C-alpha cells in the first residue's frame, strides 16, 4: 500500500481580504499609508465600492458618493476601481501559489486553493508552509491569510478567521462548531434572521433538523448543515501554468511624455519580475501594448538579447525602443507582457577552463544590450551572402567547454585580419589609364602605392528580378549588387579594401587590413 495515499489530503487556502483594495495598493504602494476608497466609475456622483481601514475609521462607508465622502473626510484619496489591476493581482496570487504547489485552483477574486500533498518533505511542518506561503504572497505585493485543513471549505473558513490558521486532521467538526456565522458571508437578511433566533455559531445550527431548516431558511442553510456534517464541494481543479506573464494598468489621464511613462513601466516591470522570480523563470522578449487617445493602439515587441529579471536593464530597453519611435498620441492604458524563459542551467567542470556563470552571463548580456542596443550585442557571424561584408548577429550562447586540444607548434606567421568600416565610406578615386592612382575621402587622402585586383562580385539580382518585367538587361540592373574589389596600399601606410559599385560608378572603402 502506498503510504502517500493513506495520508489525509491537506488543502491550503490563500485569501486576500478586500481584494480590489489590495490590488490597488499593489500597483500604488503609497496608498498603504493614506485613507483611500475605490469608486465605481468617475465623477463626484460615483458611489464608493470599497473603503480602506483608515478611511473606515474616518467615517467613510461603502455606498457613499465621492462628493459625500469628500465632505466627511477632505483628505480621502479616491481612486477609480481598475479591473485590469485586479486581474494582474489575481494572476500574481496564482503565481505565488504555483511557485509553492503544482496543483492550484483559482477560487475567485483573491482566493486560491493549493494541494499540499507531498510538500512536507520540502517545507517541513504545516506551520512552516503557511509562513512560506505568506512570504511568497508578500513578494508579489499583497498580504494573504492562510488556512490549512482537510478540504477547501474548511480551509477557506480557517483563512477567514485571519492570520495563519491550521485545522488538524480530524478536528474539522470541532472547528466548524466554533465558527461564527458572520464568517460565512451570508446575505444580511439571513444573517439577521439567524441572529434573532439566537444562532451565532455553526455549532448552534448543526443541532437543528436539516429538513426543517431548509423549508424555512432555504437551500443555503441546507448547504451549511451539509458542510458541518462533512460533505465537501469536491476535489481541486488544477490550473494550467501561464506562458505569458502580463501586467496592465489603465491611467486616469493620458500621458504624453516618456518620463512619467517610464515611472509606470518601472513599477509594472518590478511586479512582473517578482512574479517570474517566484516561478524560477526569467523575462525573455517583452510585448508592450499602449492604448492611445482616440481608440488607437500601439503594439510593439522588444527583443531581449539575454533573458533576465534585472528591472533596470529591461526598462532601458523599453525606453530605448520608445525613444526610437515614440507613441504618436497620449497613452491611456499600458499592458506589458513578458515571455517567460527558463534560466540556463550549467555546471562548471573542474578540469576545464572557467566560463561565465550562466545567471551572471544572462544579466551581463541584458545590461550590455541596454547599454549598446540589442542588435549590437551577441555573436557576430559571417552571413550566408555573396557580399563579403555581410554579417549576422545571433544571441551569445557559448557551447560547453570541451577538453582543450593538444598544443600546436607555434608558427612564424599568422593570418591577417580585416577591420571593417561600417557603413562603407564613399571616396573619390582618381585614375590614370584605368588604374586608380589617388584616393580621397573623409578620413583618407593618399596616393596609391600598390594595388591588387579587381575581383568582381555580383549577386542578389534575383531578389528584384521578379518585380521587373522590362527585359533581361533591366532585370539584372534593377536589383542586387555588382562590385569590383581592390586591395590598395596607400602611402599613408594603410592597406585598404576598396570597391567600385558598377551600377553607380562610385567608390567605397569598406575595410582596412590590420
Amino acid at each position: 500500500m502506498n503510504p502517500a495515499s493513506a495520508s489525509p489530503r491537506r488543502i491550503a487556502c490563500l485569501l486576500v481580504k478586500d481584494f480590489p483594495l489590495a490590488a490597488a495598493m499593489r500597483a500604488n504602494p503609497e496608498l498603504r499609508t493614506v485613507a483611500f476608497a475605490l469608486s465605481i466609475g468617475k465623477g463626484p456622483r460615483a458611489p464608493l465600492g470599497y473603503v480602506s481601514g483608515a478611511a473606515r475609521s474616518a467615517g467613510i462607508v461603502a455606498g457613499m458618493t465621492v462628493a459625500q465622502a469628500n465632505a466627511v473626510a477632505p483628505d480621502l484619496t479616491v481612486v477609480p476601481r481598475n479591473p485590469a489591476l485586479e486581474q494582474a493581482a489575481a494572476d500574481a496570487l496564482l503565481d505565488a501559489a504555483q511557485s509553492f504547489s503544482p496543483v492550484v485552483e483559482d477560487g475567485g477574486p483573491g482566493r486560491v486553493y493549493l494541494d499540499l500533498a507531498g510538500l512536507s518533505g520540502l517545507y517541513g511542518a504545516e506551520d512552516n508552509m503557511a509562513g512560506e506561503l505568506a512570504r511568497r504572497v508578500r513578494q508579489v505585493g499583497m498580504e494573504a491569510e492562510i488556512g490549512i485543513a482537510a478540504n477547501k471549505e474548511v480551509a477557506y473558513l480557517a483563512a477567514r478567521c485571519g492570520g495563519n490558521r491550521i485545522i488538524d486532521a480530524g478536528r474539522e467538526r470541532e472547528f466548524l462548531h466554533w465558527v461564527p456565522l458572520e464568517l460565512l458571508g451570508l446575505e444580511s437578511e439571513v444573517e439577521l434572521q439567524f441572529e434573532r433566533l439566537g444562532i451565532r455559531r455553526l455549532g448552534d445550527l448543526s443541532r437543528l433538523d436539516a429538513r426543517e431548516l431548509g423549508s424555512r431558511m432555504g437551500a443555503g442553510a441546507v448547504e451549511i448543515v451539509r458542510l458541518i456534517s462533512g460533505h465537501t464541494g469536491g476535489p481541486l481543479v488544477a490550473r494550467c501554468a501561464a506562458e505569458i506573464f502580463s501586467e496592465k494598468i489603465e491611467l486616469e489621464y493620458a500621458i504624453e511624455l516618456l518620463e512619467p511613462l517610464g515611472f509606470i513601466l518601472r513599477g509594472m516591470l518590478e511586479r512582473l519580475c517578482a512574479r517570474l522570480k517566484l516561478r524560477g523563470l526569467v523575462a525573455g522578449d517583452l510585448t508592450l501594448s499602449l492604448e492611445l487617445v482616440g481608440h488607437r493602439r500601439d503594439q510593439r515587441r522588444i527583443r531581449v538579447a539575454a533573458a533576465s529579471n534585472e528591472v533596470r536593464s529591461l526598462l532601458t530597453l523599453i525606453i530605448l525602443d520608445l525613444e526610437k519611435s515614440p507613441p504618436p498620441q497620449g497613452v491611456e492604458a499600458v499592458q506589458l507582457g513578458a515571455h517567460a524563459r527558463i534560466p540556463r542551467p550549467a555546471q562548471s567542470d573542474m578540469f576545464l577552463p572557467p566560463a561565465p556563470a550562466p545567471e551572471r552571463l544572462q544579466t551581463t548580456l541584458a545590461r550590455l544590450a541596454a547599454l549598446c542596443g540589442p542588435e549590437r550585442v551577441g555573436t557576430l557571424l559571417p552571413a550566408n551572402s555573396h557580399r563579403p561584408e555581410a554579417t549576422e548577429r545571433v544571441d551569445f550562447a557559448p557551447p560547453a567547454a570541451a577538453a582543450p586540444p593538444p598544443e600546436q607548434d607555434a608558427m612564424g606567421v599568422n593570418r591577417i585580419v580585416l577591420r571593417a568600416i561600417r557603413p562603407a565610406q564613399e571616396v573619390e578615386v582618381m585614375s590614370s589609364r584605368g588604374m586608380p592612382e589617388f584616393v580621397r575621402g573623409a578620413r583618407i587622402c593618399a596616393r596609391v602605392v600598390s594595388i591588387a585586383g579587381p575581383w568582381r562580385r555580383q549577386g542578389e539580382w534575383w531578389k528584384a528580378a521578379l518585380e521587373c518585367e522590362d527585359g533581361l538587361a533591366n532585370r539584372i540592373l534593377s536589383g542586387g549588387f555588382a562590385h569590383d574589389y581592390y586591395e590598395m596600399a596607400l602611402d599613408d601606410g594603410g592597406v585598404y579594401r576598396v570597391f567600385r559599385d558598377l551600377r553607380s560608378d562610385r567608390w567605397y572603402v569598406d575595410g582596412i587590413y590590420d
Partner: protein
Amino acid sequence: MAAALSIAGAASIDTLPGVFRGRELTRKERRLRTALAPINALLEGGIPRGRISEIVGRRSSGKTSLAAAFISAATRHGEVAAVIDLANAFDPSTMAEAGVDLSRVLWAAVPASNAVWERATEDLQSSSYFRGAKTRVDNSMRSFLRAAEMVLEAGGFGLLVMDFGDRGFTLPSSSALRLARMAERSGTAVLVVAPRPVCGTFAALSLELASMRRLFIRRIRWARPGPKHYLKDLRQPHPRPVPRTMAGEATAAALFEGMEIRATLRRNKLGRCGQSAQWRSLVSLSESYPWERARTSDRFGVHARVFKLDEARDADAGTFQAQHLP
C-alpha cells in the same frame, strides 16, 4: 599508506596537460599564449592574465591580426572571450579564418552616441555646439568603459579585447586604475588595441607594432606571347604558368599577400623590454602559390560569382576562378 598514495597522486596530477591548481588562476605568471612563435618568445610566454596589455600601432600595423591570434588561442582552448568594439570594426569572416571560434566570442559594439543623453544635453548645452560635440565623445567612451567593466564583473572570461578603433586618447587615471583592478580581481587578460598607449602606467605591457613591408606580388610579366598568355612570378626559380589576365593588360595583375610586422616591447612591468620580434601576417598560410591561394581563400569564397573570362577555360588555368578584369 593512504596519505602516501594521495601525495603521490597529487604530484602526478600536476604533470597532466591542462591541469593546474586552483591558486594558479590568480597567479601573475599565468599567461595567454598564441600560436605565433616570435610573439611568445618576445612576451616570455604570452600576455599576463589579470593585467592590462596594450597593442598599439598605426593603421595596417597588424595590431588587429595580433589581437585575433590571442582570441584564437583563448577560444581554441575552450575559454570565452569578449570583444568590446568602439569602432564597430569586428569582421567575423577574417576572424574565423584566423582561427577564432566565433561561438565563444561575445561581441559588443558601443554606439557612437547615446540618443537619450544627446537629447538631454541639447536642451542644456544648445548654446555651445563644440562643447556638446566634445561631451558626446566622452559619453561613448564612458559607455565603452562601462561595457568592459560589465564583462569583467561577470567573471569567467579568459580574454577581454578593448578595441579603441582610431581613437587613442589617454584614459583618465581613475578609469585606467579601475579597469586594472577589475582585471586583477577577475583574472581576465585585458588586451587594449589602440593607435597609441591609452592606459599609461596601469598597463602591464605595451607592444608597439609597425608594418615593415606590404607584400604584393607585382613583378609579373607575360611568359610567352601568343594566343595563350601566361604570367610568371619571377621570384620563383622555375616559373609556373598562372592564369592570364585580360589580353594585353597585365599592369596590375598583382596579389596582396600580407604584411611584414615588427613588434617592439615598449613597456613591460613583468620582465625585460626594448626587444623586437618580426613575423608575417598573411592572407593565407598555405604553402601553395599565391594564385592558388587566391582560389582557395575565403576572400573570394565559394559563394562568389566571379566572372570567368575566355582563357579561364584553359587547361592550365581551368580551376582558377578569380580573373583580373579591366
